[in-house]
């Protein structure tokens, strides 16, 4: 299986190439490109927009035919209601802590492991990689029961560790970084560094890390979102004394007078911070992706 996962060896290009690497000279997108991307963007954004609409109308208003499509001023009131009903702020803080720790840990450790699996020769590389990828193939839901028992034996229930530690290094991240390292870091560069006497760690820090920055950024974003939206295990492991944001949503339904708008307002409150972070970091991330194209 790993032979298939390994890409075919590169063709040797023996003709001399110009030595100065230039910035990318990319093609411009045409109007068709823009049209398609705008449609995709609208489809992607619409449901989140509709969450805002739903957050500002009562159940009865939403039941009209056709339903409303524009939010109104009651939105802020609903958000305030939501924050009053459920420990959303605590949930936000906890989720930030949890998601940040998981993201930092995952990106760092998975890059290490991805580099090792991708570029280092060692006994058992293939088998261990197969095991690593294999761990993703077991459906996770049933595992909560034995995991809970484990965590309670170690006294971590109701503490954030219970949610952070199991996700600190993921097989997904290891596999992802490995594939990227294999395609983005040329063997020759590493060979040259070894010949110059660099240690493996030095190779990692000076050659690999800069080259895989785009992938680290993408992995970081995906991991952060995954950790942020995780519900089932945090629901079992954390009470609403120490909730992550998804767990804190549980308190939003006041049941009998159940207003969808409050639930949606709370959901919005729990999603907007993530988006703000992305928008702020977005430039950095895009910049990172761009820079990665200039190697060395």
């Amino acid at each position: 299986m790993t032979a298939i996962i390994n890409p075919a060896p590169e063709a040797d290009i023996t003709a001399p190439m110009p030595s100065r690497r230039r910035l990318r000279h990319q093609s411009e997108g045409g109007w068709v490109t823009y049209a398609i991307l705008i449609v995709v963007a609208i489809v992607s954004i619409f449901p989140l927009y509709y969450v805002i609409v739903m957050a500002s109308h009562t159940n009865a208003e939403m039941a009209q035919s056709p339903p409303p499509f524009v939010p109104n001023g009651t939105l802020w009131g609903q958000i305030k209601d939501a924050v009053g009903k459920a420990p959303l702020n605590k949930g936000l803080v906890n989720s930030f802590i949890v998601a940040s720790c998981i993201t930092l840990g995952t990106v760092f450790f998975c890059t290490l492991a991805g580099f090792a699996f991708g570029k280092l020769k060692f006994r058992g590389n293939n088998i261990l990689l197969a095991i690593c990828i294999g761990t993703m193939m077991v459906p996770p839901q049933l595992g909560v029961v034995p995991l809970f028992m484990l965590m309670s034996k170690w006294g971590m229930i109701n503490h954030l560790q219970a949610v952070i530690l199991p996700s600190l290094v993921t097989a997904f991240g290891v596999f992802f970084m490995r594939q990227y390292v294999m395609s983005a870091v040329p063997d020759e560069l590493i060979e040259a560094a070894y010949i110059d006497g660099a240690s493996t760690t030095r190779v990692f820090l000076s050659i690999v890390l800069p080259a895989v920055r785009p992938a680290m950024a993408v992995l970081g974003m995906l991991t952060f979102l995954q950790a942020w939206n995780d519900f089932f295990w945090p629901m079992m492991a954390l009470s609403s004394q120490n909730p992550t944001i998804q767990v804190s949503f549980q308190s939003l339904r006041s049941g009998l007078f159940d207003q969808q708008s409050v639930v949606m307002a709370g959901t919005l409150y729990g999603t907007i911070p993530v988006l703000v972070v992305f928008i702020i970091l977005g430039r950095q991330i895009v910049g990172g992706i761009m820079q990665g194209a200039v190697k060395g």
Partner: protein
Amino acid sequence: MRLSSTGRRAASAVAVVAASALFLAGCGSSSDNDNNSDTSAAGPCGTTDDITLTVGLFGTFGFKEAGLWDAYHKLCPNVTIKEDDTEASGDYWTALQTKLAAESGLDDVQGIEIGFVADVVQNHADQFVNWNEVPNAAADKAEFYDWKWQLASTEDGSDTVGLGTDIGPEAICYRPDLLKQAGLPSDRDTVASKMSTWEDFIDFGKQYMASPTKPKGSYFIDSASSVFSTAVYQGDEAYDNADGQPDVENSDGVKSAWQYATDASAAGISAGLAQWGDAWNKAFASGTFATIACPSWMIGYIQGQAGDSGKGKWDVAPVLPGGATNWGGSWLGVPTSAEHKDAAIALVEWLSAKDQQVEMFANPAAGGHFPSNQEAAADPKVANATNPYFNNAPTGKIFGDIAAQMKVPPIGTYDTPIQTAFGDALTNVETKGTSPDDAWQQALDKIKQVTG
């Protein structure tokens, strides 16, 4: 700066390990505070120490909204109550079972729903405080309807796992304006007289459907499941025989309920909506159905879905076709492993006391939880309560009368999935045109999978 190769390797190793340790340390700390364990069980509050009691609930108990936590804090300033909510009772039960299996992570008070109380009694009675053995046992027991106490007790009555919160006596909630538009009688007593049996109910429904002036696109009842889940409890047996073992094929309740439900569907009086789904929620506001079997706790739900524009358009008929019965209801139990057992016991006893249970019904913010405490049910504030949203219907009297006449068949551990299996079968009849006989077989097939 050249280290030897071993030195370099060691430095790398240290760096990696140090980084890992930093992550684990930094990411590992949390911000919860330890509770003091209480040392003395003193006074009516169960303790004199400053403590926080955790109460694990699901869905719709309404204690917080009714202001009961604040009221208790005034009574017992040393006790702070924190609610631990899970939205869906299914998720709650999964988590509770896991915690019971691990014997850790339980709250001081845990809610128990009628859907899984039988399981708690059968399999976890020793993990909950036995209310027959608390200091106030006799007084506690006398408060409740017999059947409510018995549902939470072992067969010989020696072990009781929870004190009751609410019960769900059912009546028929309906839209008098829609009935009037169809040229049918719409005042609650006349309507009640027209539907004292399911046969009458279906006939009345046929009249509604046949009326040339009825609102377009409107049906008489929301779903055949509404009929089924009400009628199934009106026999001597529901899903289980007297030993608490599932036995649907020989159950009089199941057989007659199935008959009535499929008759209702065949008569075309049902809107065929999936209960609790999106379309069903919207139908409260849009008038897609004129009647629905409503337990007292649904009063608040209807108000929430139909909104302000529905005020005055709804009413409650003092009847339940086929006889008085119950839907839903919960208990509060105290795990034996609770950190503050005596304080928790004190809280639960306070919540089931007459005044608090009256508050849970009479206070509009609480949502209409009918008391399981008999004294509370007889209290004038409950007995004389009316509901302006429902055309000033005397909800207290209506539900009180029904509560007094209710008979409750035995329950079992698989009731919830069995009910779902029948609900699915009826959905197939209503939306896929499956014949009732085929659907019955489908239900039995699923039930075999459920009971293992």
